[in-house]
């Protein structure tokens, strides 16, 4: 019996103590019409060897690709130590640290995470994670609206990732919050100061934005604050090794920062598990969703760590909680904390710069090909929109036949951009990789011509 330790003798002794004849008797409170004819029609059970072979074959079949897609999930090098330590049984198989004294490992780690993330974003408080970047942005919107006395309306640029906007819509719609989309400037690919006069609770400011372009975060922040709106920064935390942290945007800094922690140690893994980062100013801490760990003292006066300010959470406040979130993305946070510790400020800066430099090289090389041009002028980070002289999908397919994932086709989400392709090169790409892409693309484009 996989994973069930009972022997025949155990079973007999246990039934005996319970004075029941068999296991069925333990289910005698279930109405017979519900329990009697249940059968599960499932594929046959496999032992570990068999499932290993099956999964190994499936994983192999999916192959290895030279990947230039970013668009919200980034291929970075993850030091080997990260997951070797994060998957240690004591982290992997522990529950949420409700019994603090028996969970100091997880708790101190989260406290360290909160410290790192707060400093990285330049804010005072970080929670212990939310599900992912998109849902973290949604929670940030809810938080800003709760904190605001005025209109339940939030401005969100079209230069925020479409999937993020979709998630925000799903999550905030039932509470009647209005989302106003702000256009981007077709020349620069960035968000101009809004021409919007009505009251609103918050403005979302992405940095870099979905096109990889750098927004004028200072001006946008000051614009919003001048109108009594809060500023929600949406950031890629890896870029904060180089870019100005939200806490320092404009005159007084953003109020809330959200983003996806994936670039900091989580593998691409087909989209998850990643984690949502959420930080804010001290003043907003009671509006914060999710768990918080605090440092305190024990009965002997020694330092220890514990979950705190739980009165915001569903298990205490129930219908009035700041969010329904309970389980978060703890293990990924553990990995990410180890990642940040390994890279340190200098390594993180290097990872960001290398990604930026590689993307610059990629864009220079590709945009040098006939039929390819940059879509936007101005400064970007490690993604960039290219405009092709023909539909993107067939080009991507042709690249895939050469083992290259050439980028993300923007056609569906931004039809007005024409044949637009979002490309990304992180520090994992070598000059040779970029050359390979360039050559493949050159070949495809010239073929199409003849």
């Amino acid at each position, binding site marked *: *019996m*996989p*994973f*069930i330790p009972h022997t025949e003798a155990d079973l007999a002794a246990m039934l005996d*103590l319970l004075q029941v004849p068999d*296991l069925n008797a333990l*289910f005698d409170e279930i*109405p017979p019409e519900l329990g009697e004819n249940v059968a599960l029609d*499932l594929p046959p059970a*496999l032992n570990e060897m068999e499932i290993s072979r099956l*999964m190994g074959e*499936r*994983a192999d079949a*999916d192959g290895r*690709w030279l990947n230039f897609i970013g668009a919200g999930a980034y291929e970075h090098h993850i*030091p080997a130590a990260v997951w070797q330590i994060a998957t240690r049984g*004591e*982290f992997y198989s522990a*529950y949420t640290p409700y*019994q603090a*004294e028996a*969970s*100091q*490992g997880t708790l101190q780690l989260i406290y*360290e995470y909160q*410290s*790192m993330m707060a*400093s990285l974003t330049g804010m005072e408080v970080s929670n212990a994670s939310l599900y992912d970047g998109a849902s973290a942005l949604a929670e940030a919107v809810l938080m800003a609206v709760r904190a605001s006395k005025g209109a339940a309306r939030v401005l969100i640029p079209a230069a925020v990732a479409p999937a*993020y906007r*979709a998630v925000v*819509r*799903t999550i905030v719609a*039932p*509470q009647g919050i209005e989302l106003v989309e702000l256009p981007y400037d077709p020349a620069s690919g960035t968000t101009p100061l809004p021409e919007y006069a009505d009251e609103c609770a918050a403005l979302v400011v992405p940095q870099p934005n979905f096109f990889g372009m750098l927004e004028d975060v200072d001006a946008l922040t000051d614009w919003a604050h001048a109108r009594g709106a809060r500023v929600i920064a949406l950031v890629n935390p890896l870029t904060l090794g*180089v870019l100005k*942290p939200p806490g320092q945007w404009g005159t007084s800094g953003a109020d809330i920062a959200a983003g*996806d922690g994936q670039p900091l140690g989580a*593998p*691409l893994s*087909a989209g*998850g*598990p990643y984690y949502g980062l959420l930080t804010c100013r001290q003043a907003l801490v009671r509006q914060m969703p999710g768990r918080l760990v605090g440092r*305190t003292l024990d*009965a*002997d006066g020694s330092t220890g760590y*514990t979950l705190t*300010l739980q009165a915001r959470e569903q*298990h*205490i406040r129930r219908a009035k909680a700041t*969010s329904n979130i309970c389980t978060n*993305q703890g293990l990924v946070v*553990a990995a990410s904390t*180890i990642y940040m*510790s*390994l890279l*340190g400020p200098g*390594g993180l800066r*290097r990872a960001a710069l*290398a990604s*930026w430099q590689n993307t610059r090289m990629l864009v220079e090389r590709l945009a040098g090909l006939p039929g390819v041009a940059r879509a936007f002028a101005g400064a970007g980070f490690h993604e960039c929109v290219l405009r092709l002289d023909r539909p993107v999908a067939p080009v991507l397919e042709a690249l895939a036949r050469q083992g290259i994932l050439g980028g993300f086709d923007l056609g569906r989400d931004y039809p007005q951009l024409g044949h637009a392709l979002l490309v990304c090169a992180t520090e994992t790409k070598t000059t040779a990789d970029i050359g390979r892409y360039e050559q493949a693309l050159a070949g495809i484009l010239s073929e199409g011509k003849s």
Partner: protein
Amino acid sequence: MKLIFEHGAPGRRTGAQWPQADDACTGLPEHLLRSQPPLLPEVAEMDVVRHYTRLSQRNYSIDTQFYPLGSCTMKYNPRAANSLAMLPGFLTRHPLAPASTGQGYLATLHELQLILAEVTGMAGVSLTPMAGAQGEFAGVAMIRAWHASRGDQGRREIIVPDAAHGTNPATASMCGYTVREIPTDRDGNVDLEALRAVVGPQTAGLMLTNPSTLGVFEQQIREIARIVHTAGGLLYYDGANLNAILGRVKPGDMGFDVIHINLHKTFATPHGGGGPGSGPVGVSERLLPFLPVPHVMRDADGSYRLADEDDFPHSIGRLSAFHGNAGVLLRAYVYARMLGAQGLRRVAEYATLNANYLMKRLQDGGFELAFPERRASHEFIVSLRRLKEETGVSAMDFAKRLLDYGFHAPTTYFPLLVPECLLIEPTETETCATLDAFADAMIAVAAEARDTPGRVKAAPYSLPVRRLDDVKAAREPDLAWRGPVL
């Protein structure tokens, strides 16, 4: 223990981890750059390995201790699931890579959808919710969308029993509903009269878990379903307690319209010190159009792809940037396939056996059960109300003292309606010998509470720290290290 930052020194670095890059930012606008480095640790690789290895040893976990935390299903997490989910082919897959490059991965997810639909008796499943609470959100949002699709706009209430998990009312609120709480009767069942009294044309639905968080099976479930359905509401199943009924009863057969499942409980994916989880939602036929996207579709040619809003225009939409906690889903699939139909049914049987056995051992040992007349499902409740009155030792004190005996404590103070309660869930993966040792420890602590209550109240003694000051933590929140004190 020192913080990782305190092991650092300015300029110390992990040479092998620094990518090669030009350190200059020429080309980036000066005013958009960081002026001060973030406060990250400046340590060597060995410091990191040593620090976090030692930190990990300061945890209780399933891999080291019995962990009978009620409502949490702390069972063994098969190690194969970890290695198989972390095969390079899966880990390196970009979520936006074309479906054609991920047929192995998508086939796995599709099969998992079918397995979960079969196990729950539902017509369709979406794997995208990233934890139980997000599954609940998806479920209640679908209830809302269904009523809206019928033009039925007046339904503003969700009914929730008082024993419900906090995420149930919190979710109802997030979905814009008013929560109506109904009481539990003396035997742990829903108070039908109270239900009848609150149900009506304003009722959007009822959220329930069965067996309830009181550890007993709600026998009138069909009647409850009838009442809610007759009033035009839908029935939501909180799948946290599926471990108790796997292969023995299907929520679909009980009359539920929507269900979420915590894979990180019933399907043995790890809790990771707080996540990640996964909370797939299943629905009956009539709610299929509203399922969150994406979910995996098998096309006529046998190939798999992710279906989105284009395929399901009535979907409640997306819940995550990509498609949920893929790595957790792979682990659950591995688990489900290793058990098969018979193995899954055994889970319920032995989880129930272990709970009833431990309950009996504790009852014989003098503990007061919350529902002595009922069978335990996979969990059960002990109330220390009397002990507290007699000795001053609270459920919290009791829990802390158990830690000294090398056991994680049961869930305390939940469900809220049972005073000084311990909610105990042993799961099917523990041996009878472990249950006996735990029962002995419980009995020993109870004796200590009578003989030397002060000793119990000041517990624990043998953990890395003594009892922590929660009040101080909340009154003077210290939520981040802000650099060395100079």
